[in-house]
């Protein structure tokens, strides 16, 4: 069966310029990736440190775990942005892919609720430096970490299936009844699935390391001593290095072991449609080198910690841009995002931007208020 038969091309006008959709999709994903990385890799790392770490490790583990309820809330919230704009321009491929794996896709919600409560159970039971925690809270925390890894796996399934329309006929044939999807498929046979999942884990380890430094230098106030900071830099160095190697391994697997020949040709080509695509392959691959070098050789200062954090944000950003280009190239034979008609709702678009600016102003004001207080995360929630 020709997979192209399964995608309807006729489209109504998209209410935003496509570049605007892409911008918010990529920007939203990058912003979402920061907290997502922290629960993805940061949560198990923090749980481990809190359980088995030395004095400082335990302290960092406790801090990150107490921050985790806010991190999860913000991360889920920021995930809405890319998902909304993705549905606006990629609906023709997004809905079929998720319907084919409907039960697993829905399982994301079913796993997220207990995972999130598990995070609270741990965070609200974990007083500053106490080691002893009731077993059920520890178990809840570990369950949450496992659930988040599983959720990540389901997301990779969904998005790799959306990118690979050629996988649909087989999955549909195997998971349907009289043409109706049973929703039981998973995209397990896709060569890109595992490397994509592992790639994100590598990035997530790096982000956790960057967060450790940022937290130690900027958010701890006077609550920690010089000793802790020294430990933080040392541990971040190790963690980032592991993340970097992991990323390099998974990235090579992804690019050289799972991309189709055409995709690799495109992504290693010099200008295509005026874009030096090779830059979007090489840059994401090399980008983690910058924060890494900063951690190794930048010197132990607050400014360097901020630069590392900013650099890591950049790493996530170029990765997101590159992912977007790869997605568009993969989809092009079936659904060319740029060819859909556009019928912009300028008024509502302006309303959104104005409200966004006001909202950011209000958020800024609120953060300014708590900055005047002790910035350490509270440990005495009722």
């Amino acid at each position, binding site marked *: 069966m020709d997979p192209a038969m399964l995608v309807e091309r006729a489209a109504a006008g998209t209410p935003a310029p496509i570049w605007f959709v892409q911008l918010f999709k990529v920007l939203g994903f990058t912003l979402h990736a920061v907290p997502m990385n922290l629960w993805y890799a940061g949560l198990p790392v923090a749980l481990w440190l809190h359980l088995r770490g030395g004095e400082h490790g335990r302290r960092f583990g406790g801090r990150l775990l107490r921050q985790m309820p806010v991190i999860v809330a913000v991360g889920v919230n920021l995930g809405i942005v890319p998902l909304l704009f993705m549905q606006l321009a990629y609906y023709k491929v997004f809905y079929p892919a998720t319907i084919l794996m409907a039960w697993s896709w829905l399982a994301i919600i079913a796993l997220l609720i207990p995972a999130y409560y598990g995070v*609270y159970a741990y965070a609200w039971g974990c007083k500053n430096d106490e080691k002893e925690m009731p077993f059920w809270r520890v178990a809840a925390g570990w369950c949450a970490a496992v659930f988040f890894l599983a959720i990540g796996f389901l997301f990779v399934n969904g998005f790799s299936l959306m990118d690979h329309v050629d996988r649909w006929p087989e999955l549909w044939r195997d998971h349907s009844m009289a043409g109706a999807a049973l929703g039981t498929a998973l995209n397990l046979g896709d060569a890109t699935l595992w490397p994509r999942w592992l790639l994100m884990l590598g990035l997530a380890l790096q982000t956790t390391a960057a967060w450790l430094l940022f937290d130690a230098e900027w958010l701890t106030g006077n609550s920690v001593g010089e000793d802790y900071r020294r430990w933080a830099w040392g541990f971040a160095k190790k963690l980032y290095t592991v993340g970097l190697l992991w990323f390099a391994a998974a990235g090579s697997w992804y690019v050289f072991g799972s991309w189709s020949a055409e995709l690799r040709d495109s992504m290693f080509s010099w200008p295509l449609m005026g874009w030096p695509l090779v830059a979007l392959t090489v840059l994401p691959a090399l980008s983690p080198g910058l924060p890494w070098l900063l951690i190794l050789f930048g010197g132990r200062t607050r400014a360097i910690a901020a630069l590392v954090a900013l650099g890591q944000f950049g790493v996530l950003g170029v990765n997101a841009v590159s992912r977007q280009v790869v997605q568009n190239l993969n989809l092009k034979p079936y659904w060319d995002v740029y060819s859909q008609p556009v019928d912009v709702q300028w008024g509502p678009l302006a309303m959104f931007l104005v*409200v966004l600016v006001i909202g950011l102003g209000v958020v800024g004001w609120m953060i300014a208020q708590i900055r005047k207080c002790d910035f350490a995360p509270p440990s005495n929630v009722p």
Partner: protein
Amino acid sequence: MHYPWWYVPQLTAPMLIAVIAVVHVLVSHYAVGGGLFLAVEVGHAYRTRDREYLAYLRGHAAFFVLLTVVFGAITGVGIWWIIGLSSPLATEVLIRTFVFGWATEWVSFFVELLAAFIFLYYWGRLPEKKHLAIGWIYAVAAWISLVLITGITAFMLNPGRWAIDPAARNFWTALFNPQFVPQTVVRTGGALLLSSLYVYLHASIFARDGRIRNVIASRSARPALLGAILITAGGLAWYAFLPDSAKATLASSAVMNVFAGVLIASTLVVFAMLYLGPYRNPGWLSPGFAGLLFLFGIAAFGAGEFVREAIRKPFVIYNVVLSNQVLPEQVPQLRAGGYLNDGVWTRAFVAEHYSDVMADGRIDNKRLLDLPYKDRLVLGKVLFLHHCNDCHAAKRGYSAVGLLLQGRPREQTRETIERLDDNYSMPPWCGTSEEAELLTDYLMTINQPRPAGIHPLMKSGGESVDEYGEME
């Protein structure tokens, strides 16, 4: 039908929407009204220097965050998940129409979240004025979320001019639809009322001090009664601005009768209990009383939400998207060219398995009837799943067609199909007459015999008697 159809055994996929939506609204209304409760009451406690009340409110705020930020927010995302899976065409249309409404709502959700955390985590560490201001920021942002989302759900029930006048198709006519104000009033009232019920339940269990319980009982009775008034006023306006078909369904469908009855009865009980209990006799606030009040409140809300979901049939978006995932303006073309032909996935299915009936990439409807019986059954089932399964299970389960047919003979079954919208809760038949034949073939295999044991003389006279006999 540009999207694949998701077959959910017994329940049908759209029923999953109803389940998640009902669970979600029970928390989301509290997320709005509870924010207002906390802002007003913390302000009151600060002014009156009531330390014990403040201590209670702090505990309540933790409970509030735990319930709304986790369960409330994630089930909200869950609705988004499930509508995309069960009703992709309608979701596509809603997103295209309201994307900037949703994006704006996201901003207020973001503000809401941060405000909630800061309000709770910095309790006692922020100056009172600032703390209170953050409580109010939460309350306002949460209400803005309510207004925007209500605009979208109201649109689904009655898009008004937007649906029928192409020149009126813009964001603002969509948002300010005939149902917008009534539903906003009802939901605002619902938020006030439901959050008082949560407060009572929580206080009856966790407020140890009798004085605090009394303060809570009497102070929260007023917003609850105000909510009751808003619900009643908004509810009347809601009814007035319903499309006629929805009014008729409400009046004629037995299930809707029952749900509307539950809704009205439990609302009345809640009003009476509120007045007699917390308002007149604050001392009554025991866990048993509060629990009962809460249960009646949940019954009213659940029934209300179910009615809202169900009376739109056969539309998901009234006059815009039919629940079998086609647009009303496509119907004539489907009847002429075939339902299977027009559906992207159904056509691919036929092309893959029955290439004999294809001509130039399209299905030749005439050839369908030449297929062997067993293949006709398969295609009949395809038609059933893609045309009927959004509202009916097959043999058993939710509104199962096999049971509804009750042994109806073939001719009549066939006629039911071709005159499907004689029952205005159903879409018009959207296929060719050949397709109706195939569907009839299939339906006759799931058609359950008329229950045995009914007095033989009660069988209606006329020619169908023998046919009923044959079925058995």
